[in-house]
């Protein structure tokens, strides 16, 4: 039987505020346990929450970035359950009146198509602390440093139909919240955590199947694996005539296994009700406009501008616009490089490859956009050949010289573009290869001719000590051989 895969995501995004959502404690990661937990975070008797305005501003910025309606009257609710790392015995969250209403994100797929994923809503809430089971024999340690860190929980519609789409959405979202500066984007520290809802239905059916939720995936790779794993698991059950149980599952990426955490029947009754310690927060036009003013150019806007301003194709424009740092590097390169398309090729080609092989981020690259741009300019004006340029790039990367011109000079990589000198070299080389010249001239198939042309290039480059402009050599060869 053929199946349709239906996927919806819930994403917890830690907001990059300096202090917690309802207290003045720091949100910095990695401090000694419980050193960033105040009386409010510990839920000491009589303490009260005070909302952090910056968390609201960040949530509104997110809403604007995903084309969403902003909830004008934002209400907090208590979600009641007992757990040692939940100090109050309830989580302060939003149920019926979230700060961000329906919106959407467009994702690009590998086949060049794009797809719209709808956002159901996003709400503000506080993170819980951490239970530490490893370090204390027979006991559990509680670290409340994270308790009260502001989160937005983003809930999508079930609009994704493959692991590829889900991961593309997740990446896009990651890039979005990082580039607008509301989240540090560090997934290894849990700054973004993904829950995946998956169900299968017979191909073409309108009726959704029973879903499962796989919780707390904190890398794109695990997410892709977990979806593949869960799809296969459900497919096996359904094809054996079984039924899917609505449940929450945990995925172990190291073993590629999942296990049930709790079924719907075991689920808590959270007894939500409006939090009486917090008045409804009214978001007015002025607040929304001030948040809009803080928004940098969004990746989609940037992509459109790159196509328009630099004449890039859709694919290159997307690759260069997704990440704000990469985009800025490209623009610096293009600004100094005279030829934007060539700059794009170098940033996406040599530069990206070198980042990958050295396992570096754009911010950690040892060269600047200006340096690469100067090199691109020398390629564009034929001062250096592309093979020579690779040597210059390598020297820049290793710090053997800090600008392209000096390196070209020092290493003697300057191309010879003097047509008189080049013509003389061509004449000499052709004179030494009469058989090949004759063969070329007798050949009628232009494809074969083109291939044969390459046979003259090696000796020409050798004769010019690698400094002859290959483009000019090519033109001169064609002219001489057609005589």
């Amino acid at each position, binding site marked *: 039987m053929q199946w349709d895969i239906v996927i919806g995501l819930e994403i917890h995004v830690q907001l990059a505020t300096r202090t917690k959502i309802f207290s003045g404690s720091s949100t910095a990661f990695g401090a000694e346990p419980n050193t960033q937990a105040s*009386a409010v975070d*510990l*839920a*000491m*008797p*009589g*303490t*009260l*929450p*005070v*909302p952090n305005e910056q968390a609201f501003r960040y949530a509104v910025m997110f809403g604007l970035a995903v084309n969403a309606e902003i909830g004008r009257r934002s209400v907090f609710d*208590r979600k*009641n359950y*007992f757990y*040692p790392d939940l*100090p*109050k*015995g*309830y989580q302060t969250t939003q149920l019926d009146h979230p700060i961000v209403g329906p919106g959407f994100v467009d994702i690009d797929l590998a086949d060049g198509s794009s797809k719209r994923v709808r956002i159901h809503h996003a709400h503000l809430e506080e993170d819980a602390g951490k239970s530490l089971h490893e370090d204390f024999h027979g006991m*559990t340690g*509680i670290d409340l440093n994270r308790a009260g860190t502001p989160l937005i929980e983003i809930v999508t519609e079930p609009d994704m139909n493959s692991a590829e789409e889900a991961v593309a959405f997740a990446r896009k979202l990651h890039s979005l919240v990082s580039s607008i500066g509301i989240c540090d984007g560090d997934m290894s520290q849990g700054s973004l955590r993904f829950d995946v809802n998956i169900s299968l239905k017979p191909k073409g059916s309108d009726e959704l199947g029973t879903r499962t939720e796989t919780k707390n995936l904190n890398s794109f790779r695990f997410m892709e694996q977990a979806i593949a794993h869960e799809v296969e698991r459900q497919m096996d059950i359904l094809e054996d005539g079984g039924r899917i149980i609505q449940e929450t599952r945990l995925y172990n990426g190291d073993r590629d296994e999942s296990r049930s955490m709790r079924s719907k029947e075991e689920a808590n*009754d959270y*007894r*939500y*009700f409006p939090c*009486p*310690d*917090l*008045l409804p927060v009214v978001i007015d036009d002025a607040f929304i406009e001030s948040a809009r003013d803080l928004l940098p150019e969004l990746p989609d806007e940037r992509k459109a501008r790159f196509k328009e301003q630099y004449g890039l194709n859709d694919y290159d424009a997307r690759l260069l616009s997704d990440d704000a740092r990469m985009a800025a590097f490209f623009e610096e390169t293009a600004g100094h490089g005279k030829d934007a398309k060539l700059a794009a090729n170098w940033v996406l080609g040599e530069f990206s490859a070198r980042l990958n092989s050295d396992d570096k981020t754009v911010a950690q690259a040892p060269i600047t956009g200006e340096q690469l741009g100067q090199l691109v300019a020398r390629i564009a004006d034929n001062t250096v050949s592309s093979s020579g340029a690779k040597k210059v790039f390598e020297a820049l990367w290793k710090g053997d010289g800090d600008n392209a011109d000096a390196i070209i000079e020092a290493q003697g990589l300057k191309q010879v573009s003097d047509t008189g000198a080049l013509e003389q070299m061509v004449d000499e080389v052709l004179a030494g290869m009469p058989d090949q010249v004759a063969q070329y001239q007798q050949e009628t198939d232009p494809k074969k001719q083109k291939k044969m042309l390459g046979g003259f290039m090696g000796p020409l480059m050798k004769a010019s000590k690698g400094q002859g402009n290959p483009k000019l050599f090519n033109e001169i060869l064609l002219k001489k051989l057609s005589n």
Partner: protein
Amino acid sequence: MHNKSVAELSRELESGKISSVELTREFLDRIKAEDSQYNSFITVTEEQAMADAKAADEKRAAGKAEVWTGVPFAHKDIFCTNGATTTAGSKMLANFVPPYDATVTANFRAAGAVCLGKTNMDEFAMGSSNESSFFGPVTNPWGLSNGEKRVPGGSSGGSAAAIAARLTPAATATDTGGSIRQPAALCGITGLKPTYGRVSRFGMIAFASSLDQGGTMARTAEDNALMLNVMAGFDPKDSTSADRAVPDYTATLNEPLKGLRVGLPKEYFSDQLSPAMEQQVRNAVKEYEKLGATVKEVSLPHAKLAIAAYYVIAPAEASANLSRFDGVRYGYRCDDPRDLSDLYTRTRAEGFGGEVKRRILVGTYALSAGYFDAYYLKAQKVRRLIQQDFINAFKDVDVLMSPVSPSPAFVQGEKTNDPVTMYLEDIFTIAVNLAGVPAMSVPAGFVDGLPVGLQVIGNYFEEARLLNVAHQFQQVTDWHQKLPQ
């Protein structure tokens, strides 16, 4: 000195007739000698009080004294006091020493007042008789001479009894459904529950957050005004506190009452009220007529729904507010828990008393899936109707007057086995909390030798008017000066 009011004591200190150290010593000695009869204090902070008194005397000597400098008073044991045990009347917090002050506590500290100790109360402020305290019931000073142990009312019964017994001239209190007004009435003193949001709730251990309000208790209206001057105001630590100007509540005490429009809600003069009680209240109203007030009957049509709505909303909020008492971070923890579930179950089963458990269960039920709409949501709708009743009533009158409680102080144990009868103690006070308006209890006579309170209810943020109305009454009556034998 112990029979004097806060205002009088402040003047005595200023004149140099007595020092704060002497005055504080006198009250501490009285507590030591007499409180075994009343059990009105849970903790007496003698050492701190004497140190504070000494500091106050030094401040005065330096010419920096203000009204409250060196004046003794007490805190209900629901206000967190940095470094002093704060129990909320519960085994759960019997050894809890907060590392922070409630805003109210900090305000009195800053004013230079001398805190004698922490007064007894119903556990987590849940009760109308002070019999649910883990630290034992409080006995009302009134009626003791007949050998009767009567309740002081609750939940602020310790504060009320201590003032009536002259163990402190004033005490803080809280009122969620009548917890200031009913004990004030039953102990023959004056109490004020301010408008919701007038006094910060930060550091005041929560019972029902949307109803809880800190307030004042003393013998006179003037002293209540002096207390409110210290307590009222916006607090950035409590986002439900009101960000509006605080008047000097003593400035308008002497305004004449000519032309005051008094409304008598007919629903509060029902057959729940004994004829003898009603007579005392009507006599008090007549005094106001003599002072130039006009009186008319008004209606609060939804008043009869108040108890039902309250006993959904308050327990619902309490069920969540009390979840933090789980034995994990502070407070009581059961011995040798087997696992997490055992830790939670036994800690809470052993740490909470019966009335608290009853309300947690009721609140949990009311919020449960499938019942939320029928109980919590419906109760909130009723609450809005009750608020509207008061808004409408105050279109025609300046204050409302009514009895505080249906009967005077009852004998301990009389109602403990019948929670619903106990809940009806607050039948005239609860709607005020649901609406959020301010109200006072003013001593207004006696029935069978036991004090009767007059409830005066004002419009939002009109505490100054209430204090004025109560003060003028106390200029022509002496009910508030009567001493229990």
